[in-house]
């Protein structure tokens, strides 16, 4: 009796499995809608990062139809208004629970960490391979693929990039005795290393002493945590990464000089003693309305100021504000800028539960057209990522973008290393302590190195 029961159950199970399998086959060969979520941080002027997917999906669907496919792609843009830390946490936790979006836009420095964790998939094994895949990928500025590479593979498609100029207020410079010719020459002098960070401090200090600029408004750096500060560490000779060894590097002396520079800004009265943490809306309002003499920020801020802050809009900005490389801290050494391309990354099957990575890649290619990327670049003040944009009217007719694109001639990227975030935290925390006077520059540098050694262990080279 028992044997009979077992046999019946076995047959039923096999039948159910066969039916299930057949059902599955029917489902996969029949019409199918693939929903592709595209996550990006920030709506506002950056909304196209994800919103372009909707239009691109229409084009992709037309292509699929022409190919005889029964698949329909539905793009779902998700704009996250939180901070970067929260956004990355959301993605990490979603990926670990198999609920990540198929496409995520994030900084290229996440490639190492997320690649190592298995959250994202490599897109190609070489630059040549990815360039050969579509005309759009062939059009991407070749050097940008470097920051999308890690351990020999290409993991992301550049979405936008930017420069982080040192802005200066021409009106205030005139007020303290600069001639038009000197102002016009300033970007060139910074580029060639004739006007250094020390010159910036002394100029701003003089401007404050002369009464042309209010105390504390001579120089406003970024008020909150961000990659910008790496520029100053590097400007004083700091090294970040040893590509041969694939290890992070810290240069102790450069760290001391960098921290001493930050402290000197407070001690000379050109930056408020209680400055770090200033609210962004206050910061934007001050710098875009002729109160600060020097200030450093990203090119994307220009678009924000023009739209939301500057009285008189972009015309007033052009009349009052100039831009240049970040000055060097070493005389004779060229000014440079940090570029921080965001990239489109594709989640793995384990992270997203989806097997449609190829479709996601096709969608990204269609979001990366000259026209579409330019729409984002112009509206958000980001620099283009395609070679064709240099010849594209809508891009070249944007005066600001045309003016600042040359900054990419001497730019650098942050490294794609799994522990870069930890390295940066130590750099930042101790910079704050040094600027605030809680530690001397030497003590702060010493602590930064100690923490890096402790947290990075054999992944750090101390110079």
């Amino acid at each position, binding site marked *: 009796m028992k044997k009979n029961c077992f046999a019946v159950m076995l047959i039923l199970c096999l039948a159910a499995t066969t039916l299930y399998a057949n059902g599955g086959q029917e489902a996969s060969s029949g019409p199918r809608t693939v929903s592709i979520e595209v996550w990006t941080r920030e709506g506002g002027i950056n909304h196209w990062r994800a919103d372009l997917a909707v239009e691109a999906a229409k084009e992709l669907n037309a292509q699929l139809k022409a190919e005889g496919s029964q698949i329909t792609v539905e793009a779902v843009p998700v704009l996250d208004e939180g901070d*970067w830390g929260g956004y990355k*946490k959301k993605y*990490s936790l979603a990926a*670990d629970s198999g609920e990540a979006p198929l496409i995520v836009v994030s900084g290229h420095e996440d490639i190492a960490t997320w690649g190592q*964790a298995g959250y994202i998939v490599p897109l190609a094994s070489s630059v040549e391979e990815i360039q050969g895949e579509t005309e759009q990928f062939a059009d991407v500025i070749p050097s940008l693929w470097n920051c999308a590479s890690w351990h020999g593979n290409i993991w992301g498609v550049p979405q936008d990039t930017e420069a982080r100029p040192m802005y200066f207020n021409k009106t205030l410079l005139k007020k303290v005795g600069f001639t038009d010719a000197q102002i016009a020459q300033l970007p060139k002098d910074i580029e060639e290393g004739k006007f250094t960070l020390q010159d910036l401090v002394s100029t701003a200090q003089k401007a404050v002493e002369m009464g042309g600029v209010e105390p504390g408004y001579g120089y406003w750096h970024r008020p909150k945590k961000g990659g910008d500060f790496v520029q100053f560490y590097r400007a004083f000779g700091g090294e970040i990464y040893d590509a041969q060894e694939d290890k992070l590097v810290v240069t102790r002396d450069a760290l001391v000089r960098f921290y001493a520079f930050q402290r000197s800004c407070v001690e000379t009265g050109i930056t408020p003693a*209680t400055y770090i*943490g200033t609210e962004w809306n206050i910061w934007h309002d001050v710098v875009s309305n002729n109160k600060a003499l020097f200030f450093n920020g990203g090119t994307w801020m220009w678009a924000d100021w023009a739209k939301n802050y500057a009285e008189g809009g972009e015309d007033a900005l052009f009349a009052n504000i100039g831009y240049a490389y970040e000055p060097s801290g070493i005389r004779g050494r060229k000014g440079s800028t940090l570029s921080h391309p965001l990239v489109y990354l594709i989640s793995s099957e384990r992270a997203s539960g989806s097997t449609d990575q190829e479709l996601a890649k096709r969608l990204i290619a269609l979001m990366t057209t000259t026209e579409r990327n330019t729409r984002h670049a112009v509206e958000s003040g980001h620099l283009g990522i395609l070679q064709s944009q240099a010849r594209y009217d809508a891009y070249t007719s944007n005066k600001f973008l045309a003016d600042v694109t040359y900054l990419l001639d001497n730019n650098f990227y942050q490294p794609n290393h799994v522990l870069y975030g930890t390295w940066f935290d130590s750099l930042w*925390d101790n910079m704050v302590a040094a600027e605030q006077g809680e530690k001397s520059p030497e003590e702060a540098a010493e602590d930064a190195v100690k*923490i890096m050694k402790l947290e990075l262990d054999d992944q750090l080279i101390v110079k």
Partner: protein
Amino acid sequence: MRKHKRSLTGYWFILPAAVLVVLYFFIPVILTLGISLTNMSSVTGFSNWSWTGLANYIKILKHPDSGSNFATTLIYVACTLSFFNVGMGLLVAILAHHMPKRLGEIFRSLWLLPRITPPVVYVLMWTMLAADAPYGVINQLFRIPFGLSTSNWLPEYAMLFAVLVNGYIGASFGMILFSSAIEAIPNDIMVSSLVDGASFFNRARYIILPQLKWPLLFVTTYQTLSLLTSFESILILTDGNFGTEVWALWSYHKALNNYYGNFQYGFGAALSAVLVFVGVIFAIIYLKYFKFNDLVKEPLIDEL
């Protein structure tokens, strides 16, 4: 036989609380301790981690920030607890009790406002209060009109603001408990003290305070443990800058929120485990100091 039945009934009553404590305290603590012994991070994900023994705890011992962050935590907890959660809570409860009933109710309600305001809105209000001239309210109303120097007060007095922001929220908790405890004091004792000529201070000192020993123990212990692990308002207020990186925020930054998204779950869990240990030590000290065993002793008159 009867006694046996009574004790079983007691266990049934304690069961829901016991389940909650196991679910929301013991299991998370065990998980935290487990994770703290691993190298789990964004890099390893939740599946490729390995056991590292006490490596994270050794890292904490060697870390240059451990001492200062621990000191910051103690200062923050001690100041918020003594000046607000217990001190201000008690003061408001006693004052409100001595006010006309309606006025007392309004007075108490005002202290509840910070608690019912969404934390982000509430903390942003403080930020705009403290902001540099010409934006901040302190500068606008109290400094500029009198020709006094202006500043960005938040970074200048960051710990003070951290304590004030949390204190105004926390005071209401103690206030409610102390108020109800004061209301529960038999009226004849309160009235007879007045008849005997006790002043307001005498009554507070010799009648009210001794009756509040139990709520005082509870509020002090509970709020110490809460403050040790609370960091949300400091996160929004200063993000740990200007010497306000309390231990819990440090743990959060390491494990779950930093700019480049490199989360060290294992190290963060070890930092949290230290807090659990410190919390337990504090709780034991309080229970000893307030003679908890005496408080829960069976009454001498057992059955009427």
